[in-house]
Structure formats: structure tokens, C-alpha cells
């Protein structure tokens, strides 16, 4: 386990004031916002930034972290097993108390690093147990990405969740839970699957919280998800589009189907295959693919087409537009 430098994660000096740290956090939270960031690792960076803020934005945690960092720097305390071999010394947090802020608890820290959990996980658990002598466990959130085919068929999926829990002696330990979840067929991105009683454990005999899994669907080479519907680009030749044709298309979930392209079909036309989506339909969006004029026969055919359609001017709109301006 690496010792994490939370100050460099936020790009501030260790002597930075509260305001400066808050500003740095907000700037980075904007920078790595999933809707704004162009960077591929935005989600991972955001996790780091959130984790650093959780510690440095809280006076008590920051003081404890600073004291630990000081001990690590002076070489005292931390049982180090070489680079990356950091282990917090026993009782490192003695004398510090961590109070849960209004907006963050163990459930928010589920995807923080092992470093964070080993420092603060146990303390958070104890704090929660003390504060809420009898309280239902917190709800827990995670995301699950499934292939499109899986979303269409539904079925069993294994997910692993890792959390710091207290054993019967009140000592922290890592618990890896493997959940076998029966995913209903037809789940869509943005939907939440609720697993009752699979969240964080309750206190004082109260029930555990629930686990919510946010569904994500892995990008598919052929199909795109649009709400309940699926869309696929269907390339057709000019002659197929003009004359109409029956073409074979791969169907989501396996197999193929025959689709009739109507005569005089235009690019962008959507053909609907009923009930082949995620509770909706499959739409085939027509796209023209031009056969290359790479042989005498093909060139002759194009010339013949040009002669036969001499009255057709694809740029008539342009001329009308130019006159109007």
C-alpha cells in the first residue's frame, strides 16, 4: 500500500489554509466532472480528489493525517516494507476523533483507496456504532457495467464489493463480499437495481441498509442504446435504397433477421424492428454506401445512371438559397 500524498492530489502546499484547499477541490471537481472532462481517466482522478478532500477538508482527519505524514517523513512509526510497503502504525490515530460531516459517511467512502480505509475506515465504523446505538445500516451505492447482450437476456452476474468492517472484537478487517445478482432482463443504462439488506450493516440489532447498483451498458460495436430503444446504422447501396431490397441484419442478442428496405428510401430513414430493444424497439438508420467506380463496368454503370437521371440536380437547393440571399 502506498502512502498517499493528499496535498499533491489537490495541488496545494501542506501549509495551505482551509479556503485554499476548498477552492482547489472545487476547481478539480469541475475539471474532472464526467460531463465536462475530456480526459480518459477523469473518473479515477475524481475519486482521488474526493478522497483527498474528505481528509483535508475535515479538521480532525487533516490533523491526524498531518501527524502521521510527519512520522512517516521522520522515518519513525510506520512499519515500512520498502517502497509501497506503507502500513499505518498501530494506534496511529490515538487522540484523534473523527466526526462524520453532514454529507459523508462510510457509504460515500466505499470506492476510496485501501490507504484511506486503513486509516479512517475503522474509526468511521466505531463512530457510526457509537453515534447510532440503534440504527439501520446506511444504503450503499455501486455501479455495474454489463454487456448489451446480457442486459437483453438478463441472468446471473457476480460482483465483488470490498469494505472495512469491524470484527467481534471491534478490530477492523477487510471483507470481500461476492454477490451473485440476478439481473432482470431489459435493464437500461441509468436504472438502479435495488438489493434489499445488502448495504452497510445496521447497529444495535437494526437491519442492514440496501445496496443500489447503477446499471451501465458497455459500448457495443453495432448497437447504441437510446432509452428503451436500440439503434444500428444500416449501410445500403444506392440501388438497394432506390429500388428497395431485402437485406439480412444481425439482431441484438443473436441471430439474424431479414429486413425490407422500401423503394426510394433516403439516408437517415429509420426502419423499426418491433420489440427488439430494451423494452423498446430496434431502429435501423439507413446510410448510403457507394460502390467504388473501380472497374470499366462500374464506371459505365455510373455513366448510364447519370444519363438516365440527367434531370436530377442534387444542388438545386443551393442555387435557390444563393438567389434568396
Amino acid at each position, binding site marked *: 500500500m502506498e502512502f498517499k500524498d493528499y496535498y499533491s492530489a489537490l495541488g496545494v502546499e501542506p501549509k495551505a489554509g482551509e479556503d485554499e484547499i476548498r477552492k482547489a477541490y472545487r476547481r478539480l471537481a469541475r475539471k474532472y466532472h464526467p460531463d465536462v472532462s475530456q480526459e480518459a481517466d477523469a473518473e479515477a482522478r475524481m475519486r482521488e480528489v474526493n478522497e483527498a478532500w474528505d481528509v483535508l477538508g475535515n479538521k480532525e482527519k487533516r490533523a491526524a493525517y498531518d501527524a502521521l505524514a510527519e512520522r512517516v517523513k521522520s522515518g519513525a512509526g510506520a512499519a515500512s516494507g520498502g517502497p509501497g510497503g506503507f502500513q499505518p502504525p498501530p494506534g496511529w490515530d490515538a487522540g484523534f476523533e473523527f466526526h462524520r460531516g453532514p454529507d459523508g459517511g462510510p457509504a460515500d467512502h466505499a470506492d476510496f483507496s485501501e490507504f484511506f480505509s486503513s486509516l479512517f475506515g475503522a474509526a468511521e465504523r466505531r463512530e457510526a456504532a457509537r453515534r447510532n446505538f440503534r440504527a439501520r445500516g446506511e444504503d450503499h451505492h455501486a455501479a455495474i457495467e454489463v454487456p448489451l447482450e446480457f442486459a437483453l437476456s438478463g441472468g446471473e452476474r457476480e460482483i465483488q464489493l470490498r469494505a472495512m468492517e469491524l470484527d467481534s472484537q471491534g478490530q477492523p478487517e477487510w471483507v470481500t463480499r461476492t454477490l451473485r445478482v440476478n439481473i432482470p432482463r431489459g435493464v437500461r443504462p441509468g436504472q438502479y437495481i*435495488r438489493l434489499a439488506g445488502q448495504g452497510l450493516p445496521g447497529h444495535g440489532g437494526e437491519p442492514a441498509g440496501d445496496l443500489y447498483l447503477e446499471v451501465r451498458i458497455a459500448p457495443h460495436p453495432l448497437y447504441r442504446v437510446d432509452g428503451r430503444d436500440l439503434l444500428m446504422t444500416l449501410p445500403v447501396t444506392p440501388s438497394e435504397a432506390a429500388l428497395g431490397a431485402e437485406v439480412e441484419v444481425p439482431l441484438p442478442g443473436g441471430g439474424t433477421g431479414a429486413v425490407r428496405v422500401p423503394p426510394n428510401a433516403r439516408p437517415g430513414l429509420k426502419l423499426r424492428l418491433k420489440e427488439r430493444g430494451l423494452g423498446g424497439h430496434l431502429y435501423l438508420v439507413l446510410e448510403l454506401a457507394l460502390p467504388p467506380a473501380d472497374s470499366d463496368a462500374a464506371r459505365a454503370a455510373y455513366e448510364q445512371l447519370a444519363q438516365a437521371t440527367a434531370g436530377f440536380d442534387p444542388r438545386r437547393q443551393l442555387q435557390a438559397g444563393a438567389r434568396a440571399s
Partner: protein
Amino acid sequence: MSPSSSSSGRTTAVTVTHCTVVGASDPLAAAELARACGATLEWVAELAASGILDAPAARPVQEWRFGSTELQRALEARRLQRDFDVNLDAAALILDLQQELRRLRAALALRG
């Protein structure tokens, strides 16, 4: 099955037979939505008053029901409050813009 890290730990395996998709047939009550967001019933009422959540204002909070879209919006609103201290009216606007951005991006992706 193995722990994903070098540190020692316990592993447990659980088969979950019962799970539901949050939606029309298995909606969340207002209290459940609040709990899922680590918030209170009053906060859910504030979200409804600011238009972040679509709820029948004339009915008591206990009768409100929410689907996945509302859960996503509520979680996002909570994140905005926590990260930027935004007030709920600004959060409502940000969420609407975000939704529009995602819709447009999806439409753009469909055009290749």
C-alpha cells in the same frame, strides 16, 4: 473467488435472489429515496419544491413515489450541494442542462 488485494481479509459469498429495478412497478417511497441519498424527508420535499423531483405537491410526502430517474437526479443534486454548496434552484438548472447535454451528445453519437 479471491480478495483483490495483498492485505489479509475475510471473504463471503452471498447469493441474492431478490432484487428489483427501481421504477414504475417497484418505486421508492420518499423516505427510501431520502435514505438512499443519506438525507432527510425534508430534503426530499425541498428537492420537489425546487422542481428537481417531480412529485404531486398536493399529496402528502408519504405518498410520493420515485423511479430511477429521480434517484439519479437526487443523488446528483446531493453531490452538487456537497461539492459546490449550490442552492437547489441552481442545482435544478445544472441538472436540466446536464440532461440536455447528455441528450444532445447521445443524438450526436447516433449521427456517427
